[in-house]
C-alpha cells in the first residue's frame, strides 16, 4: 500500500486514484473530501455529495493527510536505530568525540517514530472509512434492478420467508416452517445491522439443516442450538471485521470442546456405518485429546475451560443421556452403547481393584496366620442365587407414569439339597423406604435349577423422584456351604523316627498331596480350613500334652465380589473319630467331648458379631480322646474335618430410570 488510502469506489462508483503526496508537501492529484453524512468520497469543491446527495455547506473536510507509507517509515526507523546504536558505541570508543553526530541521529530517529505513528493512524482511519462507504453504497444503490440487488432487499427476503412459512405450515411441517420464518427475520435483522441483507440469507441454512436433522430423527434442543450456532458462525465468517474473531473462537472452541466433538463424532460415525465398533477407538481418541489438552501450551484459563467443559459434558451424558438425542433414535442408541461400554470398563476396573484389594488383604491375613484358604469344588454349574437380565420397560418416564423394572431370578442349588428360600424386594437406591411391589410374589421356594421372572412396579414415578434414579433389586436367600479338609494322622514317635531318617513321613506312604487344601462347595461364601502341620501327630498317653489335638482354623470370606453376608444361622463343625471339639475361640459352647458341634442362635451371634465383617476366622481347639480310634489299627490314617454353614446372603443389582416432569 502506498500512502494513506482514500475510500475506494464500490457498486456503481467510479474508481478514484489514491494520492501519494510526500510528507509536508501539497497533494499532486485533486484532493478528495468525505461526505460527513454518508462518509462516501466526493471530489473537492463539490457542494453536494455525489453519492448520498447530502449538502456539504458546512466546513469542508480537510484532505486526508499524506506522507510516506508505513512500510517506508518502518524501514527508515530500523535503519536509524541501527545507526544510533553504532554511533553510540563509536562515541564511547572515541570518548565523546562523535557525541554530536549521535545526538543528531537520535533526534532524527525520534522524528521518524512520530511520523510512523501518524501514518499508522491515518491508515486505520482510511480503512474504516472504506468499509463504511462500501456498506452504505450497497444499500443506497439505485442502479437497474438485478436479481442480485433484488434478493439483497430485506423486503424480498421477508416475502420469500413468509411464502415458505405458509407453504410448510400448509403441508404440516410446522417445525420447519417456524424455523424458516425465524431464519428469515434473523437474516433481515443481520442485513440491516451489517448493511448486507444478502449475507443474512445464509441464515436460511438453518431450516435446511433442521429439516435434515428431522429426517434423521435427531431434532433435540441441543442439536438445534448447535445448528443455529454453526450457521451464525458461517455468517460471521463472511465479514472481514468478525472473521478474525470467529477464527479465534473456533480455535479455542475446538480446543475446549474437542472431547465433546470426538465423542459426538464417534457416536455419529457409528450411526453412519450402522455397527457399533469397539469403544476402544473412542476411548483412545479421548485419551489422545486429553493428553493434547494437558501438554499443549495454552493459556491457563483456556486449559481450565477445556477440562471443565469436558467434565461437564461427560457428567451430563452419564446422568442424562436423553439430552443428546431422543430416546430410541439411532444416535441415542450409539451414544448409549458407547456410554454403557465405558461404564462396563469402569466397573471392570473397579472389580479389578476389588480383586487386588482382596488379594492383598488375604496375603496380609495369611502372613499374620489369621487366614485359612480353600478351593472351590469343581461343579458343572456355579451354585447360588443370581439376578439376571435386569432391565426396565421404559428408561424415561413421566412423573405420572409407572415404573416397571424386571429381571430373572435364577437358583442353582445342588440336587440333593433342600429348597432355597428367596425373598426379593426392590427399592430406590440409598432410599430403602421407597419400595416397589414385586410381582408375581416376593417370596419363593426354589428347588434345584430353577428360574423365575420377577417384576418391580412403582405405580407412580413421582414417588421415586425426578431425575435419574437407580432401582435396586435385592434378593436375600438362605444357602448352605460346606467345606472339607483332608488330614493325615500318625503317631508322633513314628513321625519322629522317619524324620530322624531324613524321610518325609508322608513320602513313606506314597502321599503326594502333602499339604491338603480345604475344598468348599460353590456359593457366595468361601470357607477355608487349616489344621496345622501335616501329618497331625498323635501323642502317647505317656507323653506330656497327651489329649490335645490339632487346632482347626476356619476362615469365612466372600466368594463372590458382590453381595454381603447378612446372617449366619447355623454352624456345624465335625472332627474325625477319636477327636473332640473342646472350644471355639476359647468359648466352651459345644457339648462336652463331642465329635460334632452344632452352633445356632446367640452362640453364633456372639461368635460373628453384627454386622458380620469378612473375612472372619475362628479357631476350634480339639482334643484326642482315643488315638487308636483315630488310627483305626493302621500306621497312618486319612481323616477329614468338615464344616457346614447355613447363612443368609443378599445380592443387589440396579437399573437406571430417568423420571421427567415436575414432581408434585
Amino acid at each position: 500500500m502506498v500512502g494513506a488510502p482514500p475510500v475506494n469506489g464500490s457498486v456503481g462508483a467510479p474508481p478514484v486514484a489514491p494520492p501519494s503526496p510526500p510528507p509536508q508537501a501539497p497533494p499532486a492529484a485533486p484532493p478528495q473530501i468525505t461526505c460527513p453524512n454518508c462518509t462516501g468520497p466526493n471530489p473537492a469543491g463539490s457542494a453536494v455529495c455525489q453519492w448520498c446527495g447530502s449538502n456539504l455547506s458546512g466546513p469542508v473536510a480537510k484532505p486526508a493527510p499524506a506522507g510516506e507509507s508505513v512500510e517506508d517509515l518502518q524501514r527508515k526507523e530500523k535503519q536509524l536505530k541501527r545507526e544510533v546504536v553504532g554511533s553510540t558505541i563509536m562515541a564511547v570508543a572515541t570518548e565523546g568525540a562523535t557525541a554530536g553526530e549521535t545526538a543528531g541521529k537520535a533526534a532524527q530517529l525520534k522524528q521518524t517514530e512520530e511520523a510512523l505513528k501518524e501514518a499508522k493512524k491515518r491508515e486505520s482511519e482510511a480503512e474504516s472509512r472504506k468499509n463504511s462507504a462500501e456498506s452504505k453504497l450497497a444499500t443506497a444503490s439505485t442502479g437497474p434492478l438485478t436479481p442480485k440487488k433484488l434478493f439483497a432487499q430485506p423486503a424480498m427476503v421477508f416475502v420469500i420467508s413468509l411464502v415458505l412459512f405458509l407453504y410448510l405450515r400448509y403441508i404440516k411441517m410446522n417445525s420447519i416452517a417456524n424455523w424458516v420464518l425465524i431464519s428469515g427475520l434473523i437474516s433481515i435483522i443481520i442485513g440491516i445491522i451489517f448493511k448486507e441483507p444478502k449475507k443474512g440469507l445464509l441464515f436460511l441454512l438453518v431450516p435446511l439443516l433442521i429439516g435434515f436433522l428431522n429426517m434423521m430423527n435427531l431434532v433435540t434442543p441441543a442439536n438445534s442450538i448447535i445448528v443455529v450456532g454453526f450457521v451464525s458462525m458461517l455468517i460471521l465468517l463472511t465479514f472481514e471485521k468478525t472473521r478474525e474473531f470467529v477464527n479465534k473462537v473456533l480455535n479455542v472452541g475446538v480446543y475446549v470442546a474437542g472431547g465433546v466433538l470426538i465423542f459426538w463424532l464417534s457416536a455419529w460415525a457409528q450411526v453412519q456405518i450402522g455397527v457399533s465398533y469397539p469403544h476402544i477407538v473412542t476411548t483412545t481418541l479421548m485419551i489422545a485429546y486429553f493428553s493434547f489438552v494437558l501438554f499443549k501450551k495454552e493459556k491457563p484459563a483456556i486449559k481450565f475451560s477445556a477440562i471443565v467443559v469436558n467434565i461437564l459434558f461427560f457428567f451430563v451424558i452419564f446422568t442424562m443421556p436423553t439430552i443428546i438425542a431422543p430416546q430410541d433414535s439411532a444416535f441415542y442408541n450409539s451414544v448409549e452403547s458407547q456410554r454403557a461400554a465405558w461404564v462396563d470398563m469402569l466397573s471392570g476396573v473397579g472389580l479389578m481393584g476389588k480383586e487386588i484389594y482382596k488379594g492383598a488383604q488375604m496375603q496380609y491375613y495369611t502372613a499374620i496366620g489369621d487366614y485359612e484358604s480353600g478351593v472351590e469344588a469343581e461343579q458343572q454349574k456355579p451354585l447360588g442365587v443370581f439376578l439376571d437380565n435386569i432391565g426396565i420397560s421404559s428408561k424415561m418416564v413421566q412423573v405420572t407414569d409407572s415404573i416397571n423394572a424386571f429381571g430373572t431370578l435364577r437358583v442353582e442349588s445342588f440336587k440333593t439339597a433342600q429348597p432355597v428360600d428367596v425373598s426379593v424386594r426392590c427399592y430406590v437406591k440409598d432410599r430403602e423406604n421407597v419400595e416397589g411391589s414385586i410381582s408375581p410374589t416376593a417370596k419363593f421356594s426354589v428347588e434345584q435349577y430353577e428360574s423365575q421372572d420377577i417384576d418391580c412396579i412403582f405405580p407412580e414415578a413421582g414417588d421415586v423422584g425426578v431425575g435419574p434414579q437407580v432401582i435396586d433389586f435385592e434378593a436375600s436367600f438362605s444357602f448352605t456351604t460346606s467345606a472339607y479338609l483332608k488330614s493325615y494322622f500318625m503317631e508322633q514317635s513314628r513321625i519322629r523316627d522317619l524324620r530322624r531318617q531324613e524321610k518325609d513321613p508322608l513320602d513313606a506312604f506314597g502321599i503326594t498331596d502333602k499339604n491338603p487344601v480345604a475344598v468348599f462347595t460353590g456359593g457366595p461364601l468361601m470357607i477355608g480350613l487349616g489344621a496345622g502341620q501335616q501329618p497331625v501327630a498323635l501323642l502317647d498317653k505317656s507323653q506330656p500334652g497327651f489329649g490335645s489335638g490339632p487346632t482347626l482354623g476356619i476362615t469365612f470370606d466372600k466368594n463372590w465380589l458382590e453381595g454381603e453376608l447378612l446372617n449366619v444361622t447355623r454352624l456345624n463343625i465335625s472332627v474325625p473319630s477319636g477327636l473332640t471339639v473342646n472350644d471355639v475361640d476359647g468359648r466352651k459352647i459345644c457339648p462336652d467331648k463331642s465329635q460334632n458341634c452344632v452352633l445356632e442362635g446367640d452362640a453364633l451371634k456372639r461368635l460373628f458379631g453384627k454386622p458380620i465383617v469378612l473375612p472372619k476366622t475362628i479357631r476350634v481347639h480339639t482334643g484326642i480322646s482315643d488315638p487308636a480310634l483315630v488310627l483305626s489299627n493302621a500306621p497312618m490314617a486319612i481323616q477329614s474335618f468338615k464344616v457346614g454353614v447355613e447363612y443368609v446372603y443378599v445380592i443387589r443389582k440396579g437399573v437406571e430410570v430417568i423420571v421427567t416432569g415436575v414432581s408434585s
Partner: protein
Amino acid sequence: MVPSQLPFGKQQVKALPNILSGTSALQASFNKNSMSNIYMCQQANVFVDLKNAGASNISGAAYIFISEEQYLKPLDKKSGVFSLEGKSLYNPNGGIAQLSFKLENKGLPPQLESYSSPLIFQACYKYQTVANAQICIDPDISNLKRGKVCSVQPVSLSGGQGAPVAVVRVEPLMVPEKDKVKPMLAVYVKNLGDGAVISQENAELACSGKKVTLSSTVALRAEMFGVELDCPDSVRLEPQGETRIICSSTALSSSADTFSTVLLVQLDYGYVTTAVLPVSINAIAEQKPC
C-alpha cells in the same frame, strides 16, 4: 547276543540265571482292573499284584490297606499276612500273588459332585541280602615279597545282590598289629530299592497301628574262609549315601603268603513296600444319599 544254536547241530549249554542280582524285593502294584473311578454308594474292587523280584523268600509278611474310611469303607479285612517265594534256580522270576480288596463308598457330602482320596497298600516283611566278593589278603605290607598272586584293592559290586539293600563296595585294609597283620574289611552298604528299611524285629509291626520304633537298622554277618568276621551286630543305615561297616579278621603273620579269598556278607533287615491308587468318587445326577 549268544547264539543258542551252534553249527553241526550242537547246542550250547544255557547259562544259569544270575539270581543274586537286582535291587528289588517285593514289587507291589495295583492291577489295572482295579476300580479307581467309582460312583457314589458304589463298591470298588481293587487288586494288588505282588511279585517277589528278589532272591530272598518272604515269609509272614504283613500288609495293610489304608483308606479314608469316612468315604471308602473297607468291606474286607484290611490287613493280613502273606508269603512269597524269592527268585531261585527253579523259579528264576520269583513268586507272584494277587490280593483283592473290596471297599464301598458311603456317600459324599452334600453339594459335592466328586471327591478324590488315595488308597494305600503297604507290605512290611523281613528280607535278606547275601553278597560275596573276591578279595585279596596280603599280610606283606612292606611289600618285600615278589610274585604275589594278587594285590589288595577295593572291590566294587554293581547291580545289587537280588535285594534292595546292597553291598556296593568292599575295601580290604591290612592293619599292622604288633608283629602281625590284621586284615580289616570296610563294607559299604546302601538301600538301592524304592521302599524303606526298618529293623528286622519290627518288620511286621510297621504295618500295624501298634507303637513301634522305626529305625533303618540292618543286622550284619560276614565270613571269610569259613571264619566269621568280627562285625557290629547291626548298623543303622545312613539316610543318604552309603553306610560304612568295618569287619575285622584274625591277625595273620606278616610272613604269611598273599592269597585271594571270598568274602561273604549277609544282611538281615525289614523292608516296607508301598503302592498308592488314587480313587475318585463321583455323584450321579439326581442321586439320593446312600
